[in-house]
């Protein structure tokens, strides 16, 4: 059971004290009723908040979006400086270009406000650069194949033989013969994206990103607003209605977090 639930449970035992006329109440004092109401109100705000899917989603989304942006910028800069190592993570001849990325980050939901991040490859959609007049191809799995360093076998599918240019010469392969590309993308690409991914998420870079996301601001300012006691609780009374307090807490959380809470 999380702490907010425990707090609600503990605070619930104060319900009888909020009702000034209760026979069970050993202390019949307006201050006690008011304090109880205040604690009950704040406990409900916290519980509502931590249980709310909208809040959790917003909280995670703010952090994830910042990480997505910063990680993308980090890989883009690395690709501009080291195109031979990371060109395979972009469309052809566009290493380091944000719009040409062949990778993306994915958020995997965890319990509460926790989540995990993993990456995925995007399919290449641009044509493999080729001399004019040649048949053009799309190497859709460029990123994943080159990153894994998988050897490629290129075999004729629609024609009887392969014809290609190599070092300025046109090569005609024997009928049906295939070509093996041992290191597609060059010898420097294997596991390079994975390495950068691991550097980013194991270094200070990810922490900086989380800090920069402003989640603390989001949380602190909204929570402070929601926790502020309503005027009716601030006013000295001998009796408070738990139902009314619960509904005030609901309403405060909804208002503080942009009205998107349920």
């Amino acid at each position, binding site marked *: 059971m999380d702490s907010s639930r425990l707090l609600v449970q503990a605070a619930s035992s104060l319900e009888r004290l909020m009702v000034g006329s209760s026979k069970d109440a050993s202390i019949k004092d307006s201050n006690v009723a008011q304090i109880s109401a205040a604690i009950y109100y704040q406990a409900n705000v916290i519980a509502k908040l931590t249980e709310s899917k909208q809040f959790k989603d917003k909280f995670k989304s703010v952090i994830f979006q910042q990480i997505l942006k910063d990680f993308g910028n980090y890989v883009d800069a690395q690709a501009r400086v080291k195109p031979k190592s990371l060109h395979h993570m972009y469309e052809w001849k566009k290493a380091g270009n944000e719009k040409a990325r062949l990778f993306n980050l994915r958020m995997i939901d965890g319990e509460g406000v926790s989540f995990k991040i993993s990456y995925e490859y995007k399919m290449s959609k641009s044509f493999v650069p080729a001399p004019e007049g040649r048949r053009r191809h799309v190497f859709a799995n460029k990123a994943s194949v080159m990153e894994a360093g998988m050897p490629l076998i290129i075999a004729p599918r629609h024609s009887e033989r392969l014809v290609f240019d190599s070092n300025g010469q046109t090569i005609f392969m024997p009928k049906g013969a295939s070509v093996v590309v041992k290191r597609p993308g060059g010898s420097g690409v294997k596991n390079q994206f994975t390495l950068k991914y691991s*550097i980013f998420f194991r270094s200070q870079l990810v922490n900086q990103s989380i800090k920069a996301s402003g989640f603390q601001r989001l949380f602190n300012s909204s929570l402070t607003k929601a926790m502020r006691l309503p005027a009716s609780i601030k006013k000295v009374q001998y009796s408070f209605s738990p139902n009314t307090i619960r509904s005030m807490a609901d309403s405060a959380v909804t208002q503080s977090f942009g009205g998107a809470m349920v």
Partner: protein
Amino acid sequence: MTPDYKLDAMFELRKFLWSKLVLAGIFDDEEYYSDNIAETIIPIIPVQQAPEMNQFLSGKKHIVYDKIGTSYEDNWMVCCEQILFTIYSTDFAEINEIRNFMMDQFRRMDESAKDINRYSGLSNKFKFYSIFIADVSPTEPSQELQGFLSTDVILEVKYSRMLDSAGRFL
């Protein structure tokens, strides 16, 4: 007066770094004198110029840099930039020397920023608040430049430009 939009905090940082590297005896500026243009080429180059410099810097230790990203804090006057420096050398000890120097110079946040602010070559249009090392990678053989080793140093820099009363650049 029209502000000089060519000014850039990254260039100021580069000037400062070069002066300190020369002062520390880590780089000898005479080694980078180009007869063609009759002046010293600072071997801390933006990635966009790296291909043009390849021949001149062949075999010589040098640093390639690029901006990772720029963002503003809640206070829009404070700019936060991450800059990636990739150090190249054919000598493992030289890379370590430059990397260790940069760590010593830039890891102290406010103190590192004060050093730049005190640097006489700094444009009076900038004020630095904080610099720290966001990441340092291990030294490994470079895939880009055959025969070179390389290592990355990422700096996070917070600064602002001098502004007029309307908040525009001076």
